[in-house]
């Protein structure tokens, strides 16, 4: 039975679903049922085969740092964030990358490339929250 108008209106947005997973330390992805490609939940058509039939998969939000920057001049909304890094990381088990906010990073010595990070939540003000992970690979 198709969803009622009320049910459609109540359906959380794609971004809301992504955020909800992030609050559990997960990264919400879509796996294409045609070719198996993984993409972030916010992608609507498979970027490999073009199909739009997906299986929703929550992956552990643990990854390795691909690159990052430490912001000395913070943009609006981040002035109170202290010394922080914006980090691009690759998930451990799948060929998929995401990015997030990592507090308490002052120098490049604090975060060598390849370091482990993990998703610890989502904050309306600072976005996808990360912390350095002690879990060994």
């Amino acid at each position, binding site marked *: 039975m198709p969803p009622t108008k009320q049910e459609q209106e109540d359906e959380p947005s794609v971004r809301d679903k992504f955020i909800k997973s992030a609050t559990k330390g997960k990264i919400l992805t879509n796996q294409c049922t045609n070719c198996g490609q993984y993409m972030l939940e*916010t992608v609507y058509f498979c970027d490999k085969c073009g199909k739009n039939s997906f299986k929703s998969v929550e992956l552990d939000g643990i990854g390795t740092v691909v690159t990052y920057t430490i912001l000395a001049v913070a943009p609006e909304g981040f002035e109170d964030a202290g010394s922080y890094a914006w980090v691009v990381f690759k998930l451990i088990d799948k060929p998929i990358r995401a*990015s997030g906010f990592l507090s308490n990073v002052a120098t490049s010595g604090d975060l060598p490339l390849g370091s482990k990070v993990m998703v610890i939540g989502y904050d309306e003000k600072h976005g996808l929250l990360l912390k350095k992970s002690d879990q060994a690979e």
Partner: protein
Amino acid sequence: MTNKVCVLGAGSTRYGKLNESIIELALNASREAILSAGISPKDIGAGYISNVFGAADKQVHIAPVIMSNLGIPYVPGLTIESACGSGSVMLREAFANVYAGFYDCVLAVGVEKITHTGTTQSTTLFSYCSDFFYEGGNGASFPGLFASIARAYLSTHKATEEDLAYVAVKNHDNGILNPKAHVRRKITIDDVLNSPVVASPLKLYDCCPFSDGASALILCSEKFAKSIGRPYVEIIGSGRGASPAAVQGRADITTIPSTVNAAKQAYNMAGVTPSDIDFAEVHDCFTIAEIIDTEDLGFFEKGKAASRIREGDTKLTGRIPINPSGGLKAKGHPIGATGIGQAVEVFEQFTGKAGQRTIKDAEIALTHNFGATGASAAVHIFKKVK
């Protein structure tokens, strides 16, 4: 049957912190281009306008306002936005319409008015050009995004922060020779390395300034250009490309696919190779961008640009001069105007108006301009008409 497309006239305001309104800036550049071409506004069949932050100066839908104030209110205008690449993407559309024969003569004007908002709000507005949910929303400023690209590049290739500084010093040297440049001041390698960190590893002098300004071109068919009898320049190649919007979506963060693909199209259309290019205006919003651009455009092998720049290959008298105008770094970066401003530089170089920054014996030139971190890009190739 397609038309050869020519640049018949060019005009530009000074770039910098300017008092005029966004509309006045656009009109000043347009008037200069029209007079330079030796035409009347009545000859213009359509207007193409590039702009990003019109709302910051309380004016959107700026195309009809510009056309009305040029005295041609019944000539259609179109505004195009593609972040920092708006000018070149708009140039491509103007080019395509003349190429296809829809119009004999069009106005292409890019404009931006941003400095009155202050650094904090400007930084915020620019962050809206990123894939905001993943980037700006997680704390990445634009310098931050390019800093993350720089960190990836420096850790992958043999390059240092000092190599980045060589780009800034060279472009400031060129900017001193450009009377319309935003920053006309010599700097040293030490000045760059000792300037305050904005987003590591990028420092203040690795970054282009926020600028106001406008630049305009008159594009036309070859037949129309010949009928006017003024000097003109031919556009012999045009290409556009795209990349994943977010940095995280790119398999290799040290290259920009939109540049590579746009260049390939432009070279093919023009029937030339990178070795045929006599000089180029490239998108150096941050020093790392110029290093990556010159590799993606085929001027240097991957990973080799930094050493070639250090050796002087990209200076005005080098093997392939890059950004004789001073580039975004010194000439300035009024983002809606930048892509058109690059073509204005080519027009001035090829019509004897570039003064001390003239590239001797140049006949083929390339412009390259991208939006955001390279999510969109356009490349054009120009030929001097003797």
